[in-house]
């Protein structure tokens, strides 16, 4: 996979090659390998996205914002599913849990968006520690079922026993988000130069968090953890017999992915000023699996595309006059076609096409 983290010599070799040959493909490869270039690409991507989306794809900024939020969720989820090879079917508990934690924090402690975001994320991390500690005792399908069980438990807990906190089936409506750093109205407009690209501050806030999240994920995947995670995915027993504490690394993968779910969940509460009970339901866990697989497991950017395409079909295609009522079917067909043609998802398809065009810079 060309977008997977490379090791030291690969990068060094690519750099060295560039000096000698200076071919376009080599230059592109070495550019792409640098951390800063990943961040820059993301910045450019999120900056031009709403403009293109709103003008050419029937989109609107609120949906673009939501796409980025789910994109963050999916990027983190892929660290667990695509890189470590663990299928969790209960990640709604971290997304929805963080959304509730953020909402309740905003109503009763502080309405500062950054603190709200921090509170939701910390909550998701602590929760993942417990859920991961218990679920990771078992592998494969048992792990998936255990996480599903924890997800559904949290749904029913929030629905009634904890209704005094969560407002039960009506969802949490008292989210109170103040201004960013005391001056910027997060639900307001943006000043001139930025306003050429995007029309509201919320998108800017979420976009900045997206860039930070992608940068963090990129850093993690280029750290020793990235290699260890993939080793566990490939051959868990062997990883243990080279002397790695596989269990603790798996727990870390689980917690890291939940941290991203926590960032996304908190942003979701801030964005909507509301936390629906639905955000804890098992279908939410299923959606993130589909988004990640659709976009491309084991790639950094793939899940962002998966989240975008999923939400596009759910919100835009569903509004088309003739096709609209069949949007679930369309989503299914897109999923099957993407996965059959490109086992590595949409990103795998993009990679394939690009390698054809640029001339196979994939080693």
């Amino acid at each position, binding site marked *: 996979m060309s977008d997977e*983290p490379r*090791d*030291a*010599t*690969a*990068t*060094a*070799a690519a750099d060295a090659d560039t000096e000698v040959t200076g071919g376009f493909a080599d230059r592109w490869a070495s550019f792409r390998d640098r*951390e800063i270039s990943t961040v820059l690409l993301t910045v450019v991507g999120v900056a031009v996205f709403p403009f293109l989306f709103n003008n050419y794809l029937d989109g609107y900024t609120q949906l673009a914002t939501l796409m980025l939020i789910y994109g963050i969720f999916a990027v983190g989820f892929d660290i667990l599913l695509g890189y470590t090879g663990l299928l969790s079917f209960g990640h709604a508990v971290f997304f929805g849990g963080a959304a509730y934690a953020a909402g309740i924090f905003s109503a009763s402690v502080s309405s500062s968006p950054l603190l709200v975001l921090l509170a939701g994320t910390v909550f998701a991390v602590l929760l993942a520690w417990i859920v991961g500690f218990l679920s990771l005792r078992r592998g494969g399908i048992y792990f998936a079922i255990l996480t599903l069980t924890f997800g559904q438990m949290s749904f029913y807990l929030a629905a009634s026993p904890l209704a005094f906190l969560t407002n039960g089936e009506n969802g949490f409506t008292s989210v109170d988000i103040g201004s960013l750093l005391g001056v910027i109205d997060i639900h307001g407009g943006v000043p001139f130069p930025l306003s050429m690209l995007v029309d509201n501050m919320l998108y800017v806030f979420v976009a900045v968090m997206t860039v930070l999240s992608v940068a*963090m994920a990129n*850093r*993690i995947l*280029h*750290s*020793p*953890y*990235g*290699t*260890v995670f*993939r*080793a566990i995915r*490939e*051959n868990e*027993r*062997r*990883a*243990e*017999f*080279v*002397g*790695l*504490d*596989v269990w*603790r*690394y798996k727990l*870390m993968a689980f917690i*890291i992915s939940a941290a991203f779910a926590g960032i996304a969940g908190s942003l979701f509460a801030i964005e909507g000023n509301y936390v629906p009970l639905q955000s804890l339901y098992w279908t939410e866990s299923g959606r993130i699996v589909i988004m990640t697989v659709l976009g491309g497991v084991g790639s950094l950017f793939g899940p962002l595309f998966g989240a975008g395409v999923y939400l596009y079909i759910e919100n835009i295609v569903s509004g088309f006059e003739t096709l609209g009522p069949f949007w679930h079917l369309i989503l299914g067909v897109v999923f099957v076609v993407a996965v059959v043609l490109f086992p590595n998802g949409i990103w795998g398809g993009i990679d394939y096409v690009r390698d054809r065009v640029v001339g196979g810079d994939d*080693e």
Partner: protein
Amino acid sequence: MTVLKTEQLTKQFGGLTAVDEVDMAIEQGEGVSLIGPNGAGKSTFINLVTRRLEPSYGEIAFQGDSIIGMDPHEVVQRGMSKSFQTASIFPELTVKENATIAALAAEHGSFRFNFFRNQNSYPAVDELANEVLESVGLYGERENEAASLDYGNKRRLELGIALAAEPDMLLMDEPTAGMSPDETKSTVKLIKRVKEELDLTFLLVEHDMEIVFDISDRIVVLNRGSVIAEGTPAEVQNDPAVQEAYLGGVEE
């Protein structure tokens, strides 16, 4: 110095005693082979020593300390490495990454909080991975996906992964199983060379008697879970109990 010592080591599966009160001691620098007919308990013994199986009773000491109750990765961290019966590698990773994983475990221990550090900032890991690949002759293949190697090279990589852990003792479970005669020859040469270069202590389980007699300092013969003979290759070869076990008591 005794590297590995077992006392009364026993494993029962229900009514079957797979390993029956085995006492064994392996000294520093010694190359020991464990042989015996099928079902003699060789693999069970290896699995007990690597902590994949819990013994029914008995004691295992590695470098003087008991390892009963430890996890497999802890035993590896103490310096006991294992190469598997099949080519147990990380197929979708590059050859270099395969070695890097083992080098990471050797340099960093079983776990570290370093998920925000770039892997390039650990040159020692990189160096060790390169060294290991050179010693098993796969440095030229380092950028290739491990799955694309032929079987013999996969087994060499397997051995490389085990060596990257910088073991004080290496357990090898049929390292030449499934290899062509040429591959077998080069693997035996590799094992001999590595043993000399690293002063490696090893315990080898092997069916091929030619290899066993070629590379062992000492041979231990298991039959029905018990040690029936041990000694130098020549001694074992002429032992009547061994001939009995292998030939099933057929009169010659």
